[in-house]
Each structure stands twice: as C-alpha cells, then as structure tokens.
C-alpha cells in the first residue's frame, strides 16, 4: 500500500544534513544543566573533586549534548499545519568526555523517514542522527533520535 505522507518523493530527504555549528562549552552551562536535572555527581559539578578522578577534571553529564543544539534539517511532509509532535526516544553512544572549554561541532542529518498506522492514526517517524565532535576531531557522542508526527 502506498504511504500517505512518506512518499517516494518525501524519502529523498533522507540523508539531508543541517548546517554544522560549533559551540564552546562553558563550565557554568555544565553546572546549570546538572542542577536542572538534579544530578549532584561531583564529576559534573565540582572541579576540585573531579580532578581526583581518572577524568582529571569536570566533564559534562551524558545528555548535556542536547543543550548543544544543531540546526535541524527541515523535513517537508504534506501533513498540513495542525499535526502534533511526540518524542519517541533516543539512542546514544559515547566515546570521549566533553569538558569545559571544548569546542564541539554539532551536525544533524535525517537518517530515516517511515510511517505506520497506530492508535493515533497515521504516524510518521522521523529519525535524525546527530554527531558531536570536539576540537581535536574526535567524536564525543552520536545521538540517534526519533520524533513522531501525527
């Protein structure tokens, strides 16, 4: 059966990338993020204590990456104006710590577009992949997230 929204034409948007952005990580931003999520781990809050660990200083909590927002490539689907959005979930892989003063280059691309009939009617699943790369060219984290439109 032909898809209602995720047509062959729409699927040509898979692979489309948003503009890369480079963001400098401020120590205060890491602390504020840790405070907002209610995580008192000294690694994310206290330089003096974090120095005693194998990291040798403060690092960012795993989902801090979300505050380093990339330009999300625009996905055009013929769903009208009134669709609703839901966050489906995320898969993260972590390779290197993110530290205060790092300059992280963030880029998001469209990894997949699917649709299926669910209890909320036709649901469209937009999967994006975001990479977080530090100033030494090392990938710190990869994020694969699914947004739902219905």
């Amino acid at each position, binding site marked *: 059966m032909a898809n209602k929204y995720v047509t062959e034409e729409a699927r040509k948007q898979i692979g489309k990338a948003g503009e890369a952005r480079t963001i400098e990580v401020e120590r205060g931003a890491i602390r504020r993020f840790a405070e907002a999520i209610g995580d008192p781990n000294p690694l994310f809050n206290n330089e003096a204590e974090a120095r005693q660990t194998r990291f040798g200083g403060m690092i960012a909590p*795993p989902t801090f990456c979300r505050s380093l927002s990339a330009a999300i490539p625009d996905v055009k689907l013929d769903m009208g104006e009134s669709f609703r959005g839901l*966050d489906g979930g995320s898969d993260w892989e*972590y390779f290197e710590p993110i530290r205060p003063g790092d300059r992280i280059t963030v880029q998001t691309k469209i990894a997949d577009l699917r649709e299926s009939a669910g209890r909320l009617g036709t649901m469209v699943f937009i999967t994006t992949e975001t990479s977080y790369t530090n100033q030494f060219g090392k990938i710190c984290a990869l994020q694969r997230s699914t947004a739902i439109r219905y």
Partner: protein
Amino acid sequence: MAHKQRYFEDVEVGQEIPPLEKHPTTQQLVKYAGASGDFYQIHYDKDFAIKNNLPGVILHGALKNAFLGQLVTDFAGEHGWLRKLSVQYRGMDQPGSMIVCKGKVVKKHSEHGQHLVDCEIWLENAKGEKTTLGSASVVLPSRHQAE
C-alpha cells in the same frame, strides 16, 4: 565524596542497579527548559498543554533520558564510563509525583580490552507503570587491571 567504586568482578547478571528516586516539579521543568533550550510550551504552560489534549504540563522526554543517564553514571562510578544509553518513551509523566529509575544487569562481556556491563533500565511512575524503557552499556574497571 561519592560511593565506593564498583568493579567488573563485583557485578553479576540479574543484579539490580540501585534505584534512583526523582521528584520532578514544575520548577524543575522550567529549569530544564532553560538549561537544555527546549522551550516547547507543553512543559511549562498549563493552558497550552490542556489545549493540546494533555492532562497538564508533562515532563520532557529528554529529562527522563537525563534521569536514566544519572542512574547509570552513578552505577558506573567515577572510574567507569557510560558507553551506550537508549530510551524509548512509552507514557507521559507529570510533575508533582515521584518517579523511580530502575535497572538490572543482563549481560557481562569483554571486548577490545574493555569490560562491559549491559543493563536493562526503565522508569516507573507512582502507580508502578513503566513510562520509559531503555538499555545501557557501561565500562567498569577490573580488579585485575592497572587503572
């Protein structure tokens, strides 16, 4: 400071991860909106949320992701490393009631000289319903390995 470091040898398949209780409030949702940059109004504007057929403001999925991140970085300790973290949102959570992050060890294995512990993780609301499911893989130090 923190807790005693957990080593790979200390962990057994089937073992529970120490649970983490969270008491999210509307104030926390505003703080999270500010810290993360996610200003979708369903997380802090009750009228807007109700107009969108929601029972009231709801937690950011990303905040629940962060809570589960805390569960597993606490488990990994300061000499461990969170290698993978996955979350799937299955239900909405509202501020003002307690939620608990839980998990258990499902597999232990070593690859490329790293000692990995795979866990099933989830978040339960006050009624005991699992509103978020997920998995995590953490690298733990070994007692037989010079750090």
